[in-house]
Structure formats: structure tokens, C-alpha cells
């Protein structure tokens, strides 16, 4: 079993299902793929994975969610895991929030919904490559 995980965070399950299927299909069994419907849940997942010795390497997060919003969440993650590749996938976001995320969470990419599968996968891949280099 892989010791690296990619986490998708979105309050919409229909997004999560399809996103996970896309990523799974593109990256196969190289990683563990987890989903969470909110930032809080995402943290739970991160904790759970850590217990199993699985490390988060990339997070694809929505911006507008109940509770903690995407930018804040990514900044928090970046604080604890500075190497995690962060991608924001959202239908709409404040320009300010995106700027902030770029600055404080080392945001790898911002992708608008509806998204193109290839673009998204290429983005994640480029992020991971940057990580490995």
C-alpha cells in the first residue's frame, strides 16, 4: 500500500466522487486517495492517515465551504506541512483570498470549475514533480 496520499476537499459530494475517480484513474495505485467534505474533516483524515503512516503530498481544495474556507485551510496545512502541493479548485473565489493563498500557502495552482481533466491532472503532476525534484 502506498504511503502517500492525495486529499480532495469539497462540500459537494458530486464533485468529490468525480474528482476522486478522475485522480484515481490518472494516478492509479501510486497514491491513496481520500476525500473530505470540510476543512475540519480534512484534518481528521490527515490525522487518520498519519496514524497509518500515510503522508499527504497533495491537496485539492474548494474555496467556498461551510466553516473554514479553502484559503485558510490551505494556509493552515502549509504551516504544518510546508511541502504539500496545494491546488485550489473552485467555482468562484475572492481575488484577495487567492492572492493570500498564493502568498501564505505557496499555492501551486488555482483552477476554476468546471475544470478540464487534463489541465487538473497536469497541474497535480507538475506539482508532484516539483516536489520530487
Amino acid at each position, binding site marked *: 500500500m502506498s504511503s502517500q496520499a492525495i486529499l480532495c476537499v469539497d462540500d459537494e459530494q458530486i464533485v468529490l466522487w468525480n474528482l476522486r475517480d478522475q485522480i484515481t484513474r490518472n494516478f492509479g495505485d501510486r497514491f491513496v486517495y481520500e476525500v473530505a467534505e470540510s476543512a475540519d474533516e480534512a484534518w481528521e483524515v490527515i490525522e487518520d492517515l498519519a496514524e497509518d503512516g500515510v503522508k499527504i503530498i497533495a491537496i485539492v481544495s474548494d474555496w467556498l465551504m461551510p466553516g473554514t474556507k479553502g484559503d485558510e485551510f490551505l494556509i493552515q496545512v502549509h504551516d504544518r506541512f510546508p511541502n504539500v502541493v496545494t491546488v485550489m479548485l473552485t467555482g468562484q473565489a475572492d481575488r484577495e483570498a487567492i492572492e493570500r493563498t498564493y502568498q501564505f500557502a505557496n499555492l501551486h495552482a488555482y483552477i476554476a*470549475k468546471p475544470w478540464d481533466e487534463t489541465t487538473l491532472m497536469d497541474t497535480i503532476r507538475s506539482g508532484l514533480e516539483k516536489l520530487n525534484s
Partner: protein
Amino acid sequence: MPHTLFSMIISSLSQKIAKLAAKTRLQTLLTVPFVLQIVGAVGLVGYFSFQNGRRSVENLVNQLISQAEDGIEHRVEDLLAKPEAVQRQILAAVKTKNLDLNNLSQLQCYFLQIVLEEDLTEHIAFGNSKGELISIDDKEGKDKIILKIKDRSTGKYRQVYQINPQCQRIKLLGKVLYDPRLRPWYKAAVAAKSHTWSPLFLSVSESELEFSSVIPIYSDTKELIGVLNSEIDLEELTQFLGNLEIGDSGEISIVERNGMVVASTSDSPTINPSRGTSRQHIDNSSNPLIRAAAEAIRQKFGSLSKIKERSLITFEYQGQRVFAQVKPLKSQDNLDWLVVGIIPETEFIAEINVNTYITILLCLLALSLSILIGLLTARWVTQPLVRLNAAAKEIAIGNLNQNVVVNRQDEFGELAQSFNTMATKLQFAFEELKALNTTLAEREQQLADYNRTLEERVRQRTQELIKSEKLAVLGQLVAGVAHEINTPLGAIQAASENISAAFERSMSRLPQLLLQMTPDELKGFMVLLETIPKTQEILSSKEERQLKRNLKQTLESKNIENTTIIADTLSKMGLITLTDELMPILQSKNNTSILETAYSLFVMHRSNQTTRLAVGRAAKIVFALKNYARQEQTASKVKASIADGIETVLTLYHNQLKRGVEVTKSYADVPPILCYPEELTQVWTNLIHNAIQAMDYQGELAIAVFVKERHVVVEITDSGCGIPLEHQEKIFEPFFTTKPPGEGTGLGLDIVRQIVNKHGGKIKLESQPGRTKFIVLLPID
């Protein structure tokens, strides 16, 4: 204070007169005071002449009665003076010893001589202290000389003889038991000790009333010898009274102080009922007029004895005024009589009445004349005024062409001329005014047109403002709406790609896999494929993870390989229970491949489901947006559900709410009401938008819809910071905003209030920190 009261009365009186005068016509106003003056003057003259008449009557009465009384007084004096004089002569004769009182026969003849003398006295008598008596009388109307004698020869009797002038007894007429010392005249003289008048007393025969002048005679040793007595003929007094003329119906009575009648024009001093003679009292007079006078005198003076001097009184008798005058007779010493004279006013009233009639006639004549003159004067004065008045009235109606002709050189003539000038000027002025008015009307019309245009502009501007407010809200919404639509779109796109990928994968793997599978595995596979579409329950990611853990444990306990991958795949498909039929495929060495293929088939199914859900979501947003943004105003009200309107807004605000607002909805079963749904949507938008902003996207939003007292009540409560009291009054005013410039027009709540008012409803606010409630009441009818 009295002064104030007086001036108050005066002022109120003058006010009343002024009020009365204001209502009265001029002609009447001029005539009435004139007539009133005349009436006053004539009335006064009449009154005084009447009073004078009365006074002169009183004078006349006074004179008349006084004359009569004076006559009586003289008569009485006359009547009484002679006997006294005679008695004093006799007394002188006795003193000069010319007459011996003890010689009764000498006395008898002496007395006879006196009696026979004309004009002295008709009666003279002497009674001595021994009880003897000599009395001679020659009373008028009796042609006999009578001697009454009582001496030693007659014993206890008094004998009455007729005698001749030669002093010789002719005939014994009768005798009676008698003692002069017991008679009233004797006693009166003894008591008075000098000349006096006896009281009126009844004669021995009790047939007549007697009254005497008496004088006691004393010896040198002051011993009483006897009493001289001269009777006075009261009959003569009565006759005298009878001859007196006091008008036609006047009465005179002479009475003693005790009221006993001495003489009267109506009564005899004695009354002769069948038994015994008694004296007449004035109160019992046969003449009712005298009785009434006696009563009036008593009322005035109390009793007769109190009258000291001549007094005239008047009293009412049978509806007429009667004069009565009383006078004490004081001509003689020791005589105390009263003369009462009575005259009814009717004696003179005829004359007075004639005077009064003449006065009244004169008064009426003067009155008629004065009214006539007054009317003529008033007419003369008012005629031009009436004409001017008529002309002025005509002018008032609008007939300006007036010319009043008054051919007079006085003030009225001038007035008429001035009036005519004025009327002409007025006519000119009026025409000018008319022209001016026309211009003014045109201007007014123009102004009204401007006004209308302006109103229209204001209305348009207001409409535009409302629209811009709406668009401002819409602008804020669009960002959220983009997210709301992009999310399902993203899901749809991903799903379609996933379907393609899953289809390819399953198509490439399925034929080979089916060939490799044992019959048990095939059966299990078929069961799995059948189960998947029936898994209706959508698990949350958390539940899915839990399921994955559970499945992994179960699978491990059954010694199945690749548990992590298999548990992952199964949990993704939401397979909760592992039936025995599934065991063959799970235990197969190709288990991961079989399950991956099954998952590919499941993805196709679920992606379809995703698409359906996403399309629904997008459609809902678009629908809400369309509802909200619809710009045309419904011309008339339509029946619409309030809750639907609120739901539309909530849909649009879904993404804003989901950040941290917990929405509690409590919709009672509320009937649809006639309303303008688009406008109400704007109300809900504003209120919900404000609520979310007030809470800064964190907190609780409670929406309640219910019916109360024929109203639909919508309560929108937020847990925000609340509205300060000083703002609560103003928040419904247009352009009131606490937001920084550019963020709000300040029209939101003003528009809300306008819309609610348009529905005949009300909007209220209750606010405190942590709980702000807007209450909208809309009438159901």
C-alpha cells in the same frame, strides 16, 4: 366689585343692542328710536298729568271735607257755647244773692224765663245735694213747656208737669222714681268740680240720648249745693249734618273716642231694637262705606283715641278709592270728639277720566304723527341707500354696469356720485383682472403640465433607483451564483469524462473477465451488479471511511487478499453488508480486477446520478435567478406562496449561507395570497441579505411563516450584532446606510417598506444584540 358688575352689565347690554341693531333694517333702525323717544315723552307727560289729577283730587277732597268739618266745628261751638253762658249767668245770679237755690219755686220760674228766651237754651235744670230737682225745658218740635220736679212734696218720685208760660202747672203728665244725684250729668259735674260736659247718656225713659253742659255749685264753705244742667239737643246736630253737602255720596260722622256715634249723616246715635235702646257704634253703622272707613282708620291708627290731628287717608272700597279724613274736635274744653268725613273718588273720577282720555288721545295723536314723520324721514334717508345697496348687490353678482341716479346735493348725492365712479373703476379693474386671470390660468396649466412631467420623471427615477438597488444586490449575488452554477457544471463535466473512461475500461475488461470467472464467481458478480443501483443511500465521506474500516476488518477476518484495495472499492460503492453470495468474488484471485470492473460499471451509474443532481441544482439556481431578476412588474396581483418566494431567495443565497449560517425554517401551512411575487422576493432578499451581513456570515438565521389574525406573518431573525436604538427609527428612511460608500444605496429597507405598504401590510423591527427580528405582516384578504 359692584362697579365691575355694573360695567359688565352695561357692556353686555350694549353688546346685545349692537347685535340687535346689526340684524335690523336701516329704516326700522331710524324709526324705532324716534318713536321710542316720543312714546317715552308722551308716556311721561301722561303719567305726570294723571298723577297731578290724583293730587288735585286729594286737595279737593281735603278742602271739601275740611270745609265741612270746619262748619261742624263752628256749629258745635255754637251749640255748646250758649248753655254754658246761661249757666254762668245763673251762677252769677246765685253769687249776687239774686237767686236762692233753696227756693225751688223761684228757681222754677227763673228757669222758665230763660228757656222761653229765644236762642239761649231749651233746657235748664238744677239738682241739689238733697236729691231735689227742678227742670224746665221747651224743646223745639214740642209745643209744650215741661216741668220736672222732685221735692219734699213729690217724695221719691219725680213728677212731670205741663206748665204754661206764666209758670203755672197745667197738667201732671207722669211720675217716675228718681234721684238726680244718681244721674250721669250730676256725677260728671261732681267729678269735674267745675264746668264740664256730661257723657252721652240715655234719658230716664231710655228713649233718647242726652248730652248736657253741667256746672257744680258750691257754698262759701265749699260744700256742694247742687248741679246746674242744660241739655243739648243732639238732634239739631244731626239735622245740621244732614244739611251738609259733601259731594253726592259723601258721609260725615261725629263720634266719641270710643267709637260711639254722636251724630251722623247716615245713622241715628241710638238704635232701637225691640228691647231697650242702646248706642250706635261706628263699626256697626248701617252704611257699609262708613264701616269700611272705620276699619281703614283703625288699620292706620290702631284706635280712634290715638288720633291727634287732622289726617287724610285713602282706602279701597268695592274697587274704588275712597278718601276719609278724621279731625279731633277741640273747640271746647273737656270735649273730645272726632269728625270723620268720607268721600269716594268716583265723585271726581269722572272729571279725571275725561282728562285722562284727552291725555291718551293727545298721546296717540303725537305717537302716530311721530311714527309717520319717522317713517318719512327714514324713507328719505334710506331711499338712496337702498338704491345704492341694490346696485352694490348687482355688482356683487357680476353686473358691473351700474349707474345710480340720486338727484340730491347732500351727502347722499355725493355718495351716489362716488359710488358711480367706483363702479366704473371697478368695471375697468374687473376687466383687467379677467385678462390677468386668463393669463394666470394658462400659466397654471403650464405649471400643472410641468408638475406632471416632473412627477413622471420622479416616478421613473424612483423606478430606476429601485431597479439599480435590485441590480446592486444582484451584482453581489452573481459572484455566489457563479460558484453555485460552476460547481454542478464541474461535476457534470467530470462525470461525463468518468463515464467515458469507465465505459472503455469495463468494455475492455469485461469479456475476458467473464470467461475467467467460475460459475460461483459469476453469480456473485451478478449479485454485486444488481445490488449497486439499489444502493440508494448516499454516504457521507466520513461514513464511507468508517465503512471502509469496517469492511477491511471483516475482509481480513475472512483471510481475503488485497483487503485495502477491496475495502476501498466496496466502500466507494456503498456496499454495507457482505452477503455469502459475494464471497466467491471476494475470495477469487482476480478479486481486485473483478471489483474494479464492477466499480467501473458503478461509476457509470453514479456519474449519471451526479449529472442528474447537478443539472437539478443548476436549474434551481437559474430558476431562482430568473425569478429574482425578472424586471417587468406584474400589473395586477396574483396568488402566490410566500414560502416559495422565500425559498427562491434562500436558494440564491445558498452558498453565502453555507459558509457558517445555520438556517432554521418553520413554515406553517399558509394559504397563497394575492400579491406581487417579484416585489415580495425583493423584500425577502433584502431582509435575508441584511441578516447575513449583520451576522458576518456566521450565526443562526430563523425564518418563520405563519398566519395570525388574517395576516401572513413572516419573521426573519438573525443572531447578529443588532441595530442600535438610534438607528432603529431611521433604517427605513431612504438613503440611510451604515455601510461604507459604494456598498449599499441605502434604499434597501426603504424599498422594502414601500413594497410592504403597497401590499397593505406592515413591517416592524425588534432588535437587541444577538437577536434582530424583522416582522412582515401581509393581509390575507
